[in-house]
């Protein structure tokens, strides 16, 4: 009898404790990200698709077209072409095509790169209606990033960041990747 009464009382107190916990949650701020209205702040180690690292001084890629990434890729989704320019010791990249349909984001290309010319991008708005959208031309992406920065900061960066001439980056076969779209506001 006494034990039963104690059990009932304890059970009731535990119910009240639970209600207290939920009430505390009630008054805490909402943690939902209203995604299309606000875009999330991504962690720095977010794994988007790969992109070429921009050299701060030249605005160009540091890729030396050694093809290590192409060989390291387990999914065969990278195609790199490079030429050896006059007066330079190393080769430089002319074409960097990546088929994101096949990519498994393993990062083997980034690890193997001797010049640290690759990184994961922060792009995540990657819905598309056509798989051709995901044949990405990373050289073109780099160019677009350069020209966008040139537009944003015309005074300081326009001179410092030379926009690569058309001959250096041949017209890509792939369409513009959807990664360039601005997130919805």
């Amino acid at each position, binding site marked *: 009898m006494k034990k039963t009464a104690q059990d*009932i009382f304890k059970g*009731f107190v535990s*119910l009240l404790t*639970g*209600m207290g*916990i*939920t*009430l505390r*949650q*009630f008054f*805490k*701020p*909402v*943690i*939902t990200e*209203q995604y299309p209205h606000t875009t999330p702040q991504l962690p720095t180690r977010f794994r988007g698709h790969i992109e070429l690292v921009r050299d701060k001084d030249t605005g160009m890629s540091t890729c030396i077209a050694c093809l290590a990434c192409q060989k390291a890729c387990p999914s065969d989704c990278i195609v790199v072409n490079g030429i050896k320019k006059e007066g330079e010791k190393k080769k430089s990249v002319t074409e960097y095509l990546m088929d994101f349909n096949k990519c498994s984001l393993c990062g083997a290309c980034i690890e193997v790169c001797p010049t640290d010319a690759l990184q994961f991008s922060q792009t995540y708005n990657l819905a598309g209606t056509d798989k051709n959208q995901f044949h990405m031309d990373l050289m073109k992406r780099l160019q677009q990033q350069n020209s966008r920065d040139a537009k944003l900061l015309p005074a300081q960066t326009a001179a410092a960041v030379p926009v690569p001439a058309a001959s250096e980056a041949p017209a890509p076969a792939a369409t513009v990747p959807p990664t360039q779209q601005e997130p919805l506001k």
Partner: protein
Amino acid sequence: MTIPEPYRLLIFLGGMLGFLGANAAYLVYCERKGAGRFQRRSGPTEVGFQGLLQPIADGIKLLSKQVMVPPGADSVLFRLAPLLVLAPAMMGLAILPFGQQIIGRPINVGLLMLFSFGSINVMAIMVGGWASRNKYAIISAARVVSQNVAYEIPMLFVAITMVMITGTMNLEVIVEQQAGGFWNWNLFKVWVNPLMPVTFIIFYICMLAETNRAPFDMAEAESELVAGAFTEYAGMGFGVFFMGEYANIVVGSALATVLFLGGWQSPIGILPGVWWFFLKMYALIFTVIWVRWTFPRTQFYGLLNLSWKILIPVSLFTLILTAALMKVF
């Protein structure tokens, strides 16, 4: 100010329907907002400012859907069941004293009438589940009946206790007896019966079970029974069931307010009136939502155990204790 009798009733009828409709629509909204807040989400935000037009959008959606009677179902009972859920709740509003003057029809057996109409709710869900010709609906109907038989008993014990203490079934008189500060509310009348707060908690738990609210929503148990008795209902048939559920919550909370929290009496002696009534009533309704989003659904035998092994003995004990104390003093 007195309004001649037929007009007063018409005004009251219109007001009651409006009150019930607005409550059903916006309690769903509050429920969703509340659920969101308890889970640190924001609830509906898209339709209108802060989602305030969401109930209207939901209503239009439900109205635009076809009400289909499944083949082989009893079409008369199938159509009747939603109305049977809603109508008794509306009857309850006619006799509840919202304020000193705001009462549709004061009758001196109001409490009895509320309980008798409250039981129709159970029958309506049973009829709906039975008429659907759906196995989940029938299981749900069976559960509703056994659950409500179990919870009606402690609720009526509490009601008898209250009638013994107040000596009347007239809800207006019960409210008037609780005048003059919150220590005169029945909830705190520990000198009449030291177990008064326990009685209130029993009443509240039974109210949750009678209205089929979580954690006692056996009638709807989505995880086991699709949507229970409402499985086959589409469009406004389902909508009316929903309205009925919220109307029953409103009536249950209002009754708890009248019986235990002093109705329209002010707790501190100022401003008695309808606003205090609504404040208390909505506090109880908020607690209903709060409980729903805190506790998981009980298992069915757990639910029956709670009633038969705890609530009925305790409520019977308070009843006998009250009787003994009244006889002694």
